[in-house]
């Protein structure tokens, strides 16, 4: 479909969009109720991560560090710093789970995480997420997989009404909630893993950030094994679905590359109709489908004359490029933070694993950018339109409620993008 460029002879990243694996892991653990993400490495990675998410979500973020120092690094195989961390955390709070994830430092030394984890004597899930491999999306996915492998109890019977949703890292809290709600309208009991929709959705509550507040509970994770159906969204989540299916031979799985635009939304609804034997949807869903159709038509003229650059994580690119393409948007370039099997399927003329320096070099190819707040300087300098999406977005508030998914979110997204394109044209003439 697209012309994909993956491996390149570039010795550095200039203005990177890539984010690290441990950061994706942290975020996944924040989707587990009363969890304390514990990042194994020197203190800085944790501090940067905390500030990064605090600013993006405008919420306090729970996270701790094993605070490895150079003196310790040489002597210790992780035992001291991890065991000590758990002790110190438990002096102050009682998490339901410790979410231990690594950074490059302990991985370079070769710490034996599994060995140490067995000595801790506290509910803990561990995952290896060196930041010299993978990226944000894979860190989240590996963590989800670890949660399943280490917590979910194998089961032999299935509950046909129980459904597990495995969302990729770029879905916002409200998007996860909307998927859950749609599925629930078909009578299912839906559990999302991880579930940011009840933890980082930005609700007023007594939040001291001592622990994550909301998300799927550890008990719920443990008993996911008897779910009749698993729905994964995003290529990065396939592996998690695979390991979940190993817990129960009776479980069935459906995969969606993404859930943006008319076709993808239709196929989810079609699946749910098939599975339940329902012969229709709620009036509200029906209405929103009509509104999306209308939005596609209302925005097609503007988008049809707009050349678009989309920047982000692979699974996010897949959905965003598709919905824009379907309304006539000319996605001339998609820049992905990392490589992924998803890239081949992306609806763009050209797909590049790259950075914002590459975006700048290709400035002639697009009029509008859909991407994170690092794109703002670029859009400003090159006088391009801008729709802010993805991590980080420190320029706008309300990120947890940005909704681009399914019929409803799709309509809003197309309107927002078409309006941004028009504003850009007004400014540049």
């Amino acid at each position, binding site marked *: 479909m697209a012309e994909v460029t993956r491996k390149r002879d*570039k*010795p*550095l*990243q*200039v*203005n*990177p969009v*890539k*984010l*690290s694996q*441990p*950061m994706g892991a942290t975020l996944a653990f924040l989707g587990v109720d009363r969890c304390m993400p*514990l990042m194994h490495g*020197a*203190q*800085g*990675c*944790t*501090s*940067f*991560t905390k*500030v*990064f998410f*605090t*600013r993006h979500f405008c919420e*306090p973020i729970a996270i*701790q*560090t*094993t*605070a490895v*120092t*150079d003196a310790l*690094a040489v002597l210790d195989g992780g035992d*001291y*710093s991890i065991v*000590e*961390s*758990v*002790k*110190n*955390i438990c002096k102050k709070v009682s998490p339901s789970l410790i979410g231990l994830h690594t*950074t*490059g*430092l302990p991985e*370079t*030394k070769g710490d034996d995480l599994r060995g140490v984890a067995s000595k801790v004597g506290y509910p803990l899930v561990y995952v290896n997420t*060196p*930041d*010299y*491999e993978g*990226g944000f999306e894979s860190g989240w996915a590996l963590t989800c997989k670890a949660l399943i492998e280490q917590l979910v109890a194998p089961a032999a019977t299935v509950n046909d009404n129980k459904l597990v949703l495995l969302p990729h890292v770029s879905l916002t809290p409200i998007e996860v909630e909307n998927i859950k709600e749609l599925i629930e309208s078909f009578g299912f009991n839906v559990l999302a893993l991880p579930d940011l929709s009840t933890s980082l959705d930005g609700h*007023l*509550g007594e*939040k*001291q*950030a001592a622990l994550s507040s909301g998300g799927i509970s550890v008990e719920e994770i443990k008993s996911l094994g008897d779910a009749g159906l698993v729905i994964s969204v995003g290529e990065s989540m396939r592996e998690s679905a695979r390991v979940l299916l190993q817990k129960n031979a009776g479980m069935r799985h459906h995969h969606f590359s993404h859930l943006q635009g008319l076709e993808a939304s239709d196929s989810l609804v079609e699946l749910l109709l098939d599975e339940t034997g329902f012969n229709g949807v709620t009036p509200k869903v029906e209405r929103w489908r009509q509104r999306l159709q209308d939005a596609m038509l209302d925005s097609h003229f503007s988008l049809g004359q707009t050349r678009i650059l989309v920047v982000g994580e692979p699974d996010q690119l897949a959905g965003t490029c598709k919905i824009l393409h379907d309304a006539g948007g000319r996605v001339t370039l998609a820049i992905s933070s990392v490589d992924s099997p998803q890239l081949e399927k992306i609806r763009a003329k050209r797909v590049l694993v790259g950075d914002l320096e590459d975006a700048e070099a290709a400035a002639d190819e697009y009029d509008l950018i859909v991407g994170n*707040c*690092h794109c703002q*300087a670029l859009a400003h300098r090159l006088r391009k339109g801008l729709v802010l999406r993805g991590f980080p977005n*420190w320029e706008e508030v309300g990120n947890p409620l940005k909704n681009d998914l399914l019929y409803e979110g799709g309509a809003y997204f197309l309107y927002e993008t078409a309006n941004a394109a028009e504003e850009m044209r007004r400014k540049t003439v």
Partner: protein
Amino acid sequence: MSSKPKIKDLLDESACEHNKKKKQACNAPKPGATTGGCAFEGAQISLFPYADAAHLVHGPITCLGSSWETRATKTTWPGRDLTRMGFTTDVSLNDVIFSGEEKLVKAIDDIMARYSPEAVFVYSTCVTAMIGDDIDLICRQAAAKHGVPMVPVHAPGFVGSKNLGSRLGGEAALRHLIGTLEPETTTPFDINLIGEYNVTGDMWQYKHLLDKLGIRVLATLSGDGRIKDIRCAHRAKLNVIVCAKSLVSLTRKMHEQYGIPSVSLSFYGKRDTSKGLLAIAAALGDPGLVARTEKLVAHEEARLEERLKLYRDVFVDKKAVLNTGGNKTWSIAAALQDLGFEVVATAVKKATEDDRARAREYLGEKGVLMMNPGVEQARLIDEKGAHLLLAGGRSLYTAIKKGIAFADVNQEKKKSYGGYDGLLNLAEDLKNALENPVFKLVARRAPWQK
């Protein structure tokens, strides 16, 4: 010879108050109970504001990927503003196994070819320090090849805290930049601003006053700084340390090597800004300059008072509780008092002995120094009848529960509160906070809870 500074020496730094009391303790963060950034972040804070230099982070993606474009350090540099760019070698597994040196060499060449900066800072980070990449050698060779300074910065995160990292950043500037170029001209009133990073343009709130007085800022470390200038910094008559204890070791060494004395001050709030300007004039030792400064300070204070009149009625009899850390525990308290607030309590949990003493000085005997603000602040708001809570975002809920106004201290990362004019920004924001109905409204019970 390695340019790696001896960490132990820096930690034992005699000029650092903090270290007199607890020497080793500063260097040992507690696993599972540590907040705050790493040494790399500290070095980044102290050096990144040079907009005419490229800052190349040699490490995996976390270090730079999560942190670039986080600090609004403004610049007048007319070329491409490199503070708004991020460069990293983004080392991969392959580099970890076989060394990242080749990649680093190519990355520097690439940067020179595309952006021709005045210098390149190369930062080692945990992983690249661990695998032993020789950034000293690479920098030396690259400097010879490209003819501009290449500065190795040895502050990988695992050596310690942000504070130590800032010192290491200063150390790198001293070793590789300061004293490598002579200024075209000098004046008797040449100063360096050390530790002023011009976040949100803080420096510009008082720089014009220095200009008026005929005081020339020869170089800065590093707000709105230029590589050419910092290379000439050894010719200054005075080092002015702006709110940055971490750079005391740098100024002490400059005193030893170049005989430059230093003063330490803050430009936050009316009284401190005035004191700061007078201290600079006094240290430069020219009676004429001192007289001119006194006059200017009087004029500026009167002008400020005039403009603050608008706010007097709003702030009179208002009580504030302050919950922040470091030197802000007293510097913001002082600014609040300048505006007419009574500061009934300030958090000193994350402050040094020195900061605590100054907080006490400003708050007086009646003021409460909170050692455990998370618990104490709610009670104190009730007891003292406070109207405003000035704190980090996580305290917002406390203010709402108590039905009082809230202001986020971190707003200063977006807007300058420095100097005389910055105080007006602060006044406006606090007035808006006090007048905003939102804090009471969101505390409303839901209809189904009545």
